[in-house]
């Protein structure tokens, strides 16, 4: 890639910082060059974010249909998966998965609920009540 070919497209990062590329100048020497963004990867990032949004919406719908607990909804909202969430709350993965069951979730102790609430930075009331 030549220095003048370094992409200067719009991106989510450009307001904060440009990023470094390594590119060849007119004398064939490698130099650092700054890029504001590249559409090719911005689209990939946007698609990934859309996918997360879809997962959040899907989880929310299933909470309202009483098919899963709000824990799964908050997990998706925080871009987590089960291994990451389990690591944050310090609870085994299989137990976290069990807490997705609405019937199990209803019986959770205040102590366990508090652990989840702390990780998601919400109150226990917010954790228990998802608004449509």
């Amino acid at each position: 890639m030549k220095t003048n070919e370094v992409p200067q497209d719009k991106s989510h990062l450009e307001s904060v910082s440009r990023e470094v590329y390594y590119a060849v100048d007119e004398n064939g020497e490698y130099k650092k060059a700054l890029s504001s963004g590249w559409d090719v990867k911005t689209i990939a990032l946007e698609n990934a974010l859309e996918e997360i949004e879809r997962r959040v919406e899907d989880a929310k719908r299933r909470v309202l249909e009483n098919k899963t607990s709000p824990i799964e909804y908050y997990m998706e909202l925080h871009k987590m998966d089960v291994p990451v969430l389990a690591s944050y709350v310090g609870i085994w993965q299989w137990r976290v998965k069990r807490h997705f069951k609405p019937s199990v979730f209803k019986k959770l102790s205040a102590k366990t609920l508090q652990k989840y609430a702390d990780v998601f930075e919400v109150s226990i009331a917010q954790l228990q009540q998802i608004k449509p």
Partner: protein
Amino acid sequence: MKIDFTHNQSAHCENGVVSNLMGYKGFKISEPMVFGIGSGLLFCYIPFLMVNHAPAITYRAMPGLIFKRFAKRVGIKIQREKFSNKEKAKARLDENLRKDNPVGLQVGVYNLVYFPDEYRFHFNAHNLVVYGKEEDRYLISDPVMETVTTLTEKQLEKVRFAKGAFAPKGHMYYPIEFPKDLKLEKAIVKGIKHTCRDMLAPVPFVGAKGIRKVAGLIRKWPKKKGVKVANHYLGQVVRMQEEIGTGGGGFRYIYAAFLQESSKILKNDQLSELSKEMTEIGDLWRDFAVDASRIYKNRSALDDAYNKVADQLNTIGNKEEAFFKKLKKAI
């Protein structure tokens, strides 16, 4: 307190932290040099592991390895500390700052407040330097950012104790012992040999073989996983390859820059020619990304389009195999 520390922006965080910490100690060493000597270049498909709900592919060595190998090969010693206690982690950091010693920290990106929301994922192998403290704000030099920034005590604690894969556990590190002058020649040769070995490894999911393996997987995705999932997977491949920190073309340009610099140090013209060849391979990776993006942009999944990008990847795999065979002989 503020340490007189020079912030140099880099493509990748780990190389950048090493390069900047070395610079503070009076050793001028470029980011590509750290990357090359530390054998940072790689290709690896990790079977069964899913990242962001897509197959895990990496274009570089495991987090932390680059610095470890670099230190060993140029003969510097690194002090590393991990903590289970947050208070202790903070106390040790403050102690170092009081002694005018800037330190590298491993952190999680998800709670790094100066990143835009869109970039905040649960990725725990980011690196930055703390070079001072003013009132309750730490002075931060994040190598991928154009300028320096700050974080409050609370904010820094949160990212130092992020959880999940590669949890940093407060990981703090800094170089402590140095040779009189750095002998780069031998280190470069070692670094290159190691990379050749990795890229030519007789393992189906590593190096050139790994690239062709992923090409084969891409061919099957639309039929096996459906259009939507296949497009998501393809988007993730491009992100691993091109997202911030790679310097473009899945680290291939940084490596080409390393070969160019090495050709001068070792007085080996062949390396300069090979640098040009690596640049061309980097360009092929970029072309692959452009064509892949056409697929996931239009959300189409003509079998043909998938076969076409798979063919491109196959060609790259063959070229890299030939390239590293030549590089092995050139050194």
